[in-house]
């Protein structure tokens, strides 16, 4: 018995030091080869980031849109998602729904969505802040919308952190795709009528940049079949955003405020015409329907 115990300990330590040994070995190799060419070819990494659905809703909400309760995915659908890809996509969808509810200060409705996030996170084995502590905090802060918003934001960030820490960003890519589809779907539905001067339309068009970064991020993981499938599904939305025209507003320059902070002037206006808006709305409805009712 004692021998088994010693053997298990040895195996554990060998396993845990494997990565370090490999690192050390690679260091030796790098030293003996050309170190700087290694850096140039292997280590110049590019990371793509994009705003959360909550940030996008916050921006779009400035254009004075009216809340519509029927737009969110029904919480009862949660049991319909059997495979892990659909669970990940719908975790993203429900995350966007929660962001929508909290931005529009729908306190009571948002509780159910915290519960759904907990259910899906458990199914996907995510260690996040969506746990018993969170529900205790929710109960204590039911009437405090700022606390609720902060808890929703923390929940999303903890999901992102989980996948970054466990180096499983391919799943995060799927969750984010789901979240963006839902966020854009709700936004399109909230815009009752197209008008060129509608501030919400220009905010929607501005998501072109977020889509570009999101797409570049997801494409890093396209070797995985379920990521590849998701890319194929959301490609029409990306293509439509790529077709939006950009016009330079003013030349790029930098000024300094009295308090020392900077002002970055410049940029382009992104325009979306009526046809593009209707097409985007249609594509999003098709993709989203497939996702919420597989």
């Amino acid at each position, binding site marked *: 018995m004692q021998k088994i115990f010693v053997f*298990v300990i040895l195996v554990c330590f060998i*396993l845990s030091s494997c990565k370090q040994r490999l690192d050390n070995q690679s*260091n030796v190799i790098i030293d003996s080869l050309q170190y700087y060419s290694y*850096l140039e070819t292997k*280590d110049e990494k590019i990371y*793509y*980031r*994009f705003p959360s659905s909550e940030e996008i809703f916050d921006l779009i909400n400035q254009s004075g849109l009216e809340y519509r309760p029927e737009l969110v995915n029904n919480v009862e659908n949660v049991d319909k998602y059997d495979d892990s890809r659909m669970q990940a996509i719908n975790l993203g969808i429900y995350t966007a729904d929660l962001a929508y509810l909290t931005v529009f200060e729908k306190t009571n409705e948002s509780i159910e969505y915290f519960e759904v996030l907990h259910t899906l996170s458990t199914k996907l084995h995510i260690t996040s802040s969506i746990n018993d502590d969170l529900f205790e905090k929710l109960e204590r802060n039911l009437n405090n919308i700022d606390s609720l918003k902060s808890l929703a934001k923390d929940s999303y960030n903890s999901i992102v952190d989980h996948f970054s*820490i466990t180096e499983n960003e391919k799943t995060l890519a799927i969750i984010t795709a789901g979240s963006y589809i839902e966020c854009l779907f709700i936004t399109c539905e909230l815009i009752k009528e197209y008008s060129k001067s509608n501030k919400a339309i220009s905010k929607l068009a501005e998501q072109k940049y977020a889509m570009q970064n999101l797409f570049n991020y997801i494409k890093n993981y396209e070797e995985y079949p379920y990521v590849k499938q998701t890319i194929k599904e959301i490609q029409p939305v990306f293509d439509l955003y790529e077709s939006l025209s950009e016009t330079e507003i003013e030349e790029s320059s930098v000024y300094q405020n009295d308090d020392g902070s900077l002002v970055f*002037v410049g940029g382009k206006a992104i325009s979306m015409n009526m046809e593009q808006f209707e097409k985007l709305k249609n594509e999003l409805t098709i993709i989203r329907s497939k996702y919420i009712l597989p």
Partner: protein
Amino acid sequence: MTLRSRILFILIFVFGITLAKAQNCQEYHKHFCRIPDFSFFYNGQSKSADFAVGQTSELHFIVYEGMDYYISVCGHKKYKKIRWKILEDNEERTLLFDNLKQNYIDTVKFSIKNTRRFILEVSIPEVPENGEKGDPTKRCVGVLIGSRLREESEFSFKE
């Protein structure tokens, strides 16, 4: 303690250490970068990664019209100097800010007039303060991004 519980304890301990090691760098910016005043909120586009001396990496992020942003760049204590630039994410990669010109400052606050794509280019220069030239050891570097909605009246600036 039975043999089974001893084995379980060792397994939890070893894998706990392995996870903690991985966790260190991923959340580095949350623990080590200088935080802004409380009017700013944590922005999910923040990121940490490991860097070696001489390495350059890029963080592509989005900034929105009507928002103020705060950026703080921090790194392992061995990295006394971290160079970072803010570039426009366009073909010309227009330079907007270079911390070298401000004696390697680690934070900046800025406002945005129009929604844009930016690149934060971070590098660990080969200077004596940053360790030996050719040292391939990777250490953590973090980028903390904060953001807040700007009141229209606050948007005054001089040329």
